[in-house]
């Protein structure tokens, strides 16, 4: 185990812990720069991971750092997407201005939703955001003039300052740049007084209040910032999918976004990115498994005779081709993570790292969570 002794203010202010950590990030950045060359077929999928990463970042600020769980973030994504497309295509606003406007609109809506949030805690807020998302979805399908209604709305390729970003490679770098910018901004915000106040609210509202944190201001701020990030993601998401329809921004998408931060690990920016990678990769893995698992099972059972193998093949094949399998698998993963690894992928990684750092002395109790059997939850 290594301790970092800070000897100067520059070290205290730096974004990275030490040079080793910085070099790792530089290496990661370099890898991301050459990744499209290494995996040319997946460039478009990886840009989706970046967009999901932005969404995860947004929800992580709200749910992971401020402790306000929202089941309505698909609505913010939708507002960002529709607002951006409306500004860029119907009003002819330049791209960058339009994205900024979309962020501003989404942030404004976020603040409006966040205002009553002061009076609600815990699950009430979750229900309220859920209701908000369902209303917004209805608005998307009714407000024909702006959203194109149920017919949907085609989206053009992005063009910044007259330069077209139509190619997948260009869009990849656009998303990467936006994600890095957002990560940098959020990481710095979280170590500022604002971020500390958010974490304090998450850990105990009453303690935060008695330390002089204005709950109303900071909760609304968290909502506004999170919504603005979601609007940014929405603008890119619109270009990514190329066609907007109201049923894309459903409750199921909201749940998927929450799944992302839970699986990634609440309360860490790394977790947002891990979750995004996980959620984007899982459908690919499932579709691969659909093709290969039946044959694999049949091969495993072939010593039992041809009849058994063929029967197993047909049965497994029918099972994995069920249309309802995928949402069920998502649900199962969610349940397993909540029960067995509530800290998510990030938490598991931290445990593994600590195990090797402390090698013979690692104790499982280090990460044991305290249970709070509070009868007064409803009195909060």
């Amino acid at each position, binding site marked *: 185990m290594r301790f970092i002794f800070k000897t100067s203010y520059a070290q205290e202010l730096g974004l990275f812990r030490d040079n080793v950590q910085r070099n790792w990030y530089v290496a990661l950045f370099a890898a991301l720069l050459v990744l499209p060359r290494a995996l040319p077929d997946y460039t478009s999928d990886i840009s989706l991971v970046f967009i999901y990463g932005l969404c995860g970042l947004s929800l992580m600020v709200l749910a992971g750092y401020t402790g306000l769980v929202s*089941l309505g973030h698909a609505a913010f994504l939708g507002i960002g997407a529709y607002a951006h497309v409306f500004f860029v295509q119907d009003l002819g606003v330049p791209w960058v201005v339009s994205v900024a406007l979309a962020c501003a609109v989404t942030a404004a809506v976020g603040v409006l939703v966040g205002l009553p949030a002061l009076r609600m805690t815990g699950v009430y807020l979750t229900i309220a955001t*859920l*209701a908000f998302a369902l209303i917004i979805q209805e608005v998307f399908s009714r407000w024909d003039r702006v959203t194109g209604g149920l017919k949907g709305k085609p989206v053009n390729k992005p063009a910044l300052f007259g330069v077209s970003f139509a190619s997948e490679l260009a869009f990849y770098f656009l998303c990467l740049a936006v994600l890095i910018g957002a990560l940098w901004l959020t990481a710095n915000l979280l170590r500022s007084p604002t971020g500390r106040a958010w974490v304090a609210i998450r850990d105990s509202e*009453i303690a935060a209040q008695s330390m002089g944190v204005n709950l109303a201001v900071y909760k609304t701020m968290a909502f506004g910032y999170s919504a603005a990030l979601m609007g940014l993601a929405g603008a890119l998401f619109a270009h990514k999918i190329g066609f907007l329809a109201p049923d894309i921004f459903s409750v199921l998408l909201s749940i998927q976004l929450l799944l992302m931060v839970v699986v990634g690990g609440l309360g860490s920016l790394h977790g947002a990115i891990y979750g995004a990678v996980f959620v984007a990769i899982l459908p690919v893995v499932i579709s691969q498994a659909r093709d290969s698992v039946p044959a694999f099972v049949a091969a495993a059972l072939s010593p039992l005779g041809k009849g058994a193998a063929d029967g197993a093949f047909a049965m497994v094949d029918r099972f994995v081709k069920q249309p309802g399998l995928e949402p069920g698998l998502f649900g199962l993963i969610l349940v397993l993570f909540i029960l067995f690894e509530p800290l998510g992928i990030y938490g598991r990684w931290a445990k593994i790292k600590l195990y090797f750092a402390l090698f013979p002395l690692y104790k499982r109790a280090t990460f044991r969570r305290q249970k709070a059997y509070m*009868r007064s939850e*409803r009195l909060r």
Partner: protein
Amino acid sequence: MDIVLQLVLNGLAVGCIYGLVALGFVLIYKATELVNFAQGDLLMLGAFTCYMFVVWYGVGYWTAFALAIAAVALFGAVLDAGILRRVIGQPQFAVVMLTIGLGAIFRSFASMTWGSEIYTLPTPFSAKATRLGGVTVSHEYVSIIVGTVLLCAGLYAFFGYTKVGVAMQAASQNQLAAYYMGIPVKRMFSLIWAISAGVAAIAGVLLAPVSLIDINLGFIGLKAFAAAVLGGFGSIPGALVGGLTIGLIELFAGAYLPHGVKDVAAYVVLLIVLAVRPQGIFGTVGRKKV
């Protein structure tokens, strides 16, 4: 006038269903302080189970009704004992995500077992109606209202007059004190889950003839949230009153307000209630003492 009466009748029937689902939320919330986002999906399972017994196995309607309630109630108890007991005392967020995940698993299970088509459940009340003055009284709606009244009377008697019911009240008011009095709190909680799941199954079977059965039937649970919140999340009469209110508001919004308002009326009411009076009509929410 006739139209208004008709709307009131239909609104009460729809409201009863919301009320029953909301009742399920409230029972569990009062006892274990968990909010069960899978309540609507338990309703869906109840409707499908009854359909399976009636149509696949040719069991009579009433027997199938009882079997469906028993099956789903048992399932609820197993769910509590096996999974949900483990998250008591963890942050509410974990519970919300857990029940959402369970709901997704139930929907997936239903679509694999019964298929993703839309079914109708044949009942003794199907497509029969009596005309009273200018009002068409559909027997399906009457069955819902009568069923709800009977169920509520039964639950009231159970919680007020039986030993187990009083023990459950004690367990939900103060776990520790209940333990000291020798009440098996864990078993009580499982029983409450069973009752709550059974109520959901009853709501599902009553709802089945009115709204067709498909795997998305459970999304009615979202509207029942509005009912539960309107009544104040911890109050049993509040849940029923909230359900009836939401049902009436929805039907009248559908009749007199522009197209599309009906679908979101419940959520608008929910948001207004949360913004104006978060403790609901019957709620007794105070500030936490440190």
